[in-house]
Structures are given as C-alpha cells and as structure tokens.
C-alpha cells in the first residue's frame, strides 16, 4: 500500500510502472507537484489574458466593442478568482508544497500518497467546472471576485444564472482538494522528517508552506460555509444572506438575510488567504537569498517565529476589508490596530533579509534578481497597506485605484516574482537541466520594470480619486486628460508584461530538452533537496539509504568551510552546525 512507502525507510523505487501510473495516475509527490504547477500555470495564462482584455478597454475605451460592461465585469471576476485561488494558492501549496516538503525534510513521499493524487484530480475538476462557466448561457459570473450578495445572485448581474452556480460549486470542489493536500503537508512535516531533521532545522521554505497550510485549513472552511449558504440562497430560495428586496421591479421571495454576514465569512477566509500566498513566498525568498548570497540566513529562529506570529495575527484582522461597510468604531479601532501590528513581524523579516544580503557574496543570478525584486515590491506594497489599515485613510481610498495598486503589488506581483525565482532556482532539480539564462534575464527585467510601470501609476490615479470597477470614464470632470494617458501607458505595459510571460513558458519547454545539463547541485546549496542520489530524484527520493541530517540548511560562507557550503547531511565532522545547536542536544538527534 502506498501509505507504507512514505514512512518505510527501506522502501525505494523498485516497482515497475507504466506510463499511466508514472505520469498520469501518479502517487509520486514530484509528479503531482508538476501536474499542479502545469495546471495552475495554464489557468494563470487565462487569468492574465482576461486582465489584458480589461486593460484594452481601460486604455482604449470604445475601440474594442466586444468588451461590453457585462463582459468587463465577467473578466474582472474571473481574473481575480483565477489569480488568487486557482493560480497562486494552487501553485504555492500544490506545486511548491508537494515538490519541496518531502525532499526538504528527507521523506520518501507524502504520508498519504493516494490522497495526494486525489487532491490533484479534484483540483483539476474544480478548474474544469470554473472554465465551463465561460461556455454556459449568460457566461461566467460578473459579481466581482468577492461575490458579495445580494447583487451576486440577482438579475442584472452578469452570469447570475449558471455562472455564479458554477463558480460556487468550483470553489467548494477546490476547498475539498486543498483540504486533502493540506492534511498531507501538515502530517508529512510533523511525522515523516528524517533522522536529525528537527523542526528548527527545517528550511524556511518548509516553514512558510507549513504555516500557510494550517492557515488554509482554518480559513478555507469559512469560504466553504459562505459558499454553501450562498448556493442555497441562489438555488433553493433560503435567506441566509439575502434581505427582503425588489429586484428589476419584481419582489423577490427573500427576507431578513444579512449581506454583512457573508462579508464577515468571506474575509475571515480572504485575509488569511493573503498570507496563504505570502508565507510560502517569505520562506522561498529566504532560501533564495541565503543560497545566492552565500550567507547563512540572518536570525533563523526569529524568521520562524515571525512566520508563526504573522499566521496567528492574520486571523484577527479580517474586518479591515469592511471598514466602508460600517461598524462600531471600537471594532474598527481593534481591527486597525491588529492590522498595523502585523507590520512588526513582517518588518523583522524584511530586516533579516536585508541583513542576510549585507556583506554577502551576492550572485546576481536570475533567481536572486527575482528575490531582490520581491523585497522592493513587498516593501512598497506593505507600506501602502499601512495607509489602508488606518480607517480614516481607507474610507476615501477604498473605492479607488490606490487599492488596486496596493493589493496587486503586495499579493499579486510580489508572490509571482517569488514563484518565478523559485522556478528558476529549482528547475534544475526537477528536470536536470538549467533554464536558459539569457531568456531568464529578459523575462526578469521586462516583468520587473513592466509591473512597476503598470502599478506605480495606479497609486497616483487612486489618489486622484479615479474609481475602480468602472467600465469607462467618459464624462467625469475630476479625471484629467493625463489620467487617460496614464491608462494608455498602463495598458501597453500590461500587454508587454503578458507577452514576456510566453517567453518564460517557451523557456520552460525549450530547456527541458535543450537546457544546459545542471548536475546534482548547480547552485551549491546546502539544503537536503539538492543532496538526492539522482537528479531528477526518482520515486522514493533517497535510494537505499535514508539521509541523516546533522545541521541546519544555511551553512554557507564563513560558516561553511572551504567548499563555501556544507550539506545538511554531510558528516558531523564537517562542521557548520547551527548557532543554537545546543537546543537540539539530548533529543536523540545527531548534532
């Protein structure tokens, strides 16, 4: 049975497998990770194309007549939901989580491989259901990605017929998939670590994914609850969220429901979702910076606790998304305060990344470029978050492009930069070949500069008072002509950035056969995933002999001896023990 395989130190890949069991119905975490990643990238391309259609309308209003107001709202909704849920969440947890956790903690596989396989196929089903909404009568829902009732299920909103139903069903299926995956990630981290791999020796990538998974397991049920109840309101006429109202001249049968209840439930999921995306990015970027600066991560324990504290705080800030909905001023004060407190552990992480870079032997490789770009972007997006965390500033800015700029910088561009960095970094381990460096540099610079030219001007447009969610802006005297010129520039840059992503996808495909052969450890990294006997690792990961870990994953530079780094599983005589190694003594752990 598959279950034994992950936990049996003697099991290895000695079983004949057909093409179908190896690449399609595979229970190997690495294949599942690639399946997740390919699906997420494919659906992400759809999301990017939708954003380009929106930008065409905003940059050149009236030129593209097929972009009607109804379709514009459908593009907004599907773009938002696809990028947040089906791309970012799936790629970080299903893609990076699946590939990295067993390799980084020294396990043969996830502890429940069969459920892991099911998780991917259920995720794929959720994507198919979502995409089906493009082809049903009325098209996909145009309710906005927050799906706020009452408008999301009333006539007049695009896709209120089948589109909203398919969206809700797809989300419920996605949550089932995420739960199956999440059970695996948490249990594997807690149960299947190899000898010597204490929790405080795990790479920060694993810590980030681990805490993000716990957040997902706590937060996604809120989306499930709101999704089920909204679905019942839509299909069976209950009034969980729907108040008594007249719609399009008709009295509806609804009565007494609370739209605010939906907002509370949605954002109880929605805000942790920001950190479900951000925490894996924090972890991955920590590892990229340490490896490519050839320096131990600064303040490892602080970094771990910052991830934990951010995770805890993220579940008590949700109502800052609802300041404009109106609430008791004391509640608003509470949620503004908790929101601002999150800046403290986050700032600790930023300082520690900067201090890791300080006097490091910085190699400006493509992954490192993406990591540094993340630092800038995240700081900028975080600082505008401080603006919006204050009630008195949030209320006038909430309906403007300032908010669009903020959340795209902090949870759109920043995590995507980490995803790119992570893919450039670990592609050699996944395929055995390097991604093309020249294409990588072009991809980086166009993406980095381009996204800044897209989202920086939006801050200005927001301060001007330019409202978001509008299909066109003719006839608004307070919007100067310069704003329309900026919109044209933003659209051109959005098209450029989208185009260069196809170059990245081409690089992924081309390098698979033609990339330079990487060798087992091209970045000279110390963490365990680079120490597998084969590259790419085979099913079972470690061959006959399970690894034994003697130190942390950050033995670089001065700490790392003559070879500049010491692998986590190198014999103890090699040195490089973590600064607080005494904490590991007396627990039957090699040190």
């Amino acid at each position, binding site marked *: 049975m598959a279950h034994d395989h992950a936990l049996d130190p003697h099991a290895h890949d000695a079983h004949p497998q057909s093409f179908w069991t190896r690449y399609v119905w595979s229970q190997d975490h690495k294949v599942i990770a690639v399946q997740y990643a390919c699906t997420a990238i494919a659906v992400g391309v759809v999301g990017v194309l939708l954003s380009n259609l929106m930008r065409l309308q905003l940059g050149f209003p009236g030129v593209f007549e097929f972009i009607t107001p109804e379709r514009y709202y459908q593009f907004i909704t599907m773009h938002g939901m696809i990028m947040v849920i089906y791309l970012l969440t799936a790629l970080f947890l299903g893609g990076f989580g699946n590939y990295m956790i067993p390799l980084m903690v020294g396990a043969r596989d996830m502890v429940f491989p069969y459920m892991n396989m099911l998780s991917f196929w259920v995720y794929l089903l959720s994507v198919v259901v979502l995409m089906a909404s493009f082809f049903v009568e009325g098209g996909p829902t145009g309710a906005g990605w927050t799906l706020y009732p009452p408008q999301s299920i009333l006539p007049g909103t695009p896709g209120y017929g089948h589109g909203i139903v398919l969206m809700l069903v797809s989300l419920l299926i996605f949550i089932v998939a995420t739960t199956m995956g999440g059970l695996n990630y*948490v*249990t594997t981290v807690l149960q299947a670590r190899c000898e010597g791999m204490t929790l405080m020796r795990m790479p920060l990538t694993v810590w980030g994914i681990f805490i993000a998974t716990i957040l997902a*397991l706590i937060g996604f049920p809120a989306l499930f609850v709101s999704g089920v109840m909204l679905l019942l309101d839509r299909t069976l006429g209950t009034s969980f969220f729907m108040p008594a109202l007249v719609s399009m001249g008709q009295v509806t049968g609804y009565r007494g429901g609370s739209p605010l209840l939906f907002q509370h439930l949605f954002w109880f999921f929605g805000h942790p979702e920001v950190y479900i995306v951000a925490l894996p990015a924090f972890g991955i970027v920590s590892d990229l910076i340490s490896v490519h600066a050839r320096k131990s991560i600064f303040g490892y324990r602080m970094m771990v606790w910052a991830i934990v504290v951010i995770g805890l705080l993220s579940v008590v800030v949700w109502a800052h998304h609802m300041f404009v909905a109106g609430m008791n001023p004391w509640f608003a004060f509470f949620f503004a305060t908790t929101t601002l407190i999150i800046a403290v552990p986050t700032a600790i992480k930023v300082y520690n990344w900067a201090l890791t870079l300080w006097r490091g032997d910085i190699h400006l490789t493509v992954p490192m470029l993406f990591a540094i770009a993340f630092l800038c972007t995240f700081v900028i997006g975080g600082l505008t978050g401080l603006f919006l965390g204050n009630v008195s500033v949030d209320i006038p800015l909430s309906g403007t492009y300032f908010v669009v700029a903020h959340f795209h910088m902090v949870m759109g561009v920043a995590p995507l930069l980490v995803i790119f960095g992570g893919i450039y970094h670990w592609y050699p381990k996944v395929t055995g070949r390097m991604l093309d460096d020249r294409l990588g540099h072009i991809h980086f610079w166009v993406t980095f500069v381009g996204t800044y030219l897209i989202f920086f001007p939006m801050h200005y447009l927001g301060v001007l008072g330019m409202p978001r969610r509008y299909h066109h802006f003719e006839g608004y005297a307070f919007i100067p002509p310069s704003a329309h010129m900026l919109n044209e520039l933003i659209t051109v840059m959005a098209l450029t950035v989208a185009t260069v992503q196809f170059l990245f996808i081409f690089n992924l495909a081309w390098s698979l056969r033609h990339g330079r052969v990487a060798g087992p450890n091209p970045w000279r990294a110390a963490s365990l995933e680079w120490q597998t006997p084969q590259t790419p690792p085979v099913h079972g990961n470690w061959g006959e002999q399970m690894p034994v870990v003697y130190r942390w994953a950050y033995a670089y530079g001065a700490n790392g001896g003559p070879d500049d780094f010491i692998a986590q599983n190198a014999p103890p005589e090699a040195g490089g023990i973590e600064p607080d190694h005494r904490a590991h003594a007396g627990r039957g752990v090699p040190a």
Partner: protein
Amino acid sequence: MSAVIPAAATLPPRAATGGPPPRTPRGRAASIGLWVFMGVASSLFSLFAWAYVMRMSEGDAVRLDLPPQLLLSTSLLLAGSVALGLARSVAQECPLAPSASDLARVRRLLVAGGLCAMAFLGSQLWAWQAMLSAQVLLASHPAGSFFYLLTAMHGLHLAGGLVGWAWTASVAWRQPAAGAWRIGLCARYWHFMLAVWLAIYALLRWMTPEAARFICGVA
C-alpha cells in the same frame, strides 16, 4: 505502487512488549492526519455556529421547536461512540491469535458502532420528515434553514466516517490486534462526531433569537 508490508510483519508480538503493540509510523501518521482533519471540521462547524448566531440576531428569526426524534438520534450516536470505544479496548487486549470469543466480541462491538451510526442517519431523516410535516421548510425561516443545513453537514461527515469504518472493519475482522489502532481512530472520530452533534443540538435548542441578539449586541 509500493511494497505492502503484511500487518503481522510490522506488529511486534504482544508478549514481547508486555502490552499493546506500539503504534507503527503508519498508525502515528494516520492519527496525526485525523487530528488535523478534526481541526478542519471543528473550524467548519464553529463557523457555521458563528453564522447561526449572527443570522438569528436578525428581526425575522424565530425559535425552533425541535422534533423528539433528535433525542433518539443522540442516544444512537452515543451508543455507537461507546461501542467503538469498547471495541478498541477489547481489540488492544486481544492476542495476535485471538480466541473465538474475543473475535466475536470485537466483531459485535464493531458492527454495533457502525449500525448505530447508520441508525443515527436514519433517525435524522425521520426528524427531517417530522419537520417537513410541521411545515418547517428549508426556506421557511433562518432557524429552519440552519436546521437542515447543519444536520446535513453533520450527516455527511458521519457518512464519510462510515466509509472509514467499513475499511477498518474489513481489516480488523480477522486480526483485531493488528487493526486496533484503526478501530481507535474510528472511535475517536465517533466521539468527535458525537461532540459536534451535541454542540449543534445545544445551538438549535437554546440559541434563541433573544440570546443571539444579546450576544451580537443588538438586543
């Protein structure tokens, strides 16, 4: 995909250890996985409860008269929970070559646990029928909507547990000692389902619109 390790090969003889067989890594992983899943389910039902309280504080909320069938349901789930708890204890005490009486006892308790859960689901459907007869429909009022929703969600979770119970029973049927940890997991899930049901029952029974308005500060 990988080698199947026969249960007997991984199970140290009870005589050698002087007590119940130690849990295998596989058993520990399943145990952690179940704790995590129970955490997820707790989050889910807590959020439903939160939504219930908020919704019941609105002006159209009315108090629900619960049908007596729910007391029968509660008794059945309690009995199932106790039966599986006993089945675990007996299975842990069984030698690797169990006597016929031990085997029969474990089997009886295992079957009783599953049948009680099935009867619970039947009793819940009976309660639904009673509510429908009393003209409490899904869309009648918020308390009615939540009654059907919460009982359905709980029933689905228990039905999922029955799949695990069937798997456990098939494994532990001939070799209770080897399957004791599985029975233990089933028993734990049954206890959890009982606790969730008691919380739902208490919520439906005592969370009146007045109490909800007091909690939400809109009394």
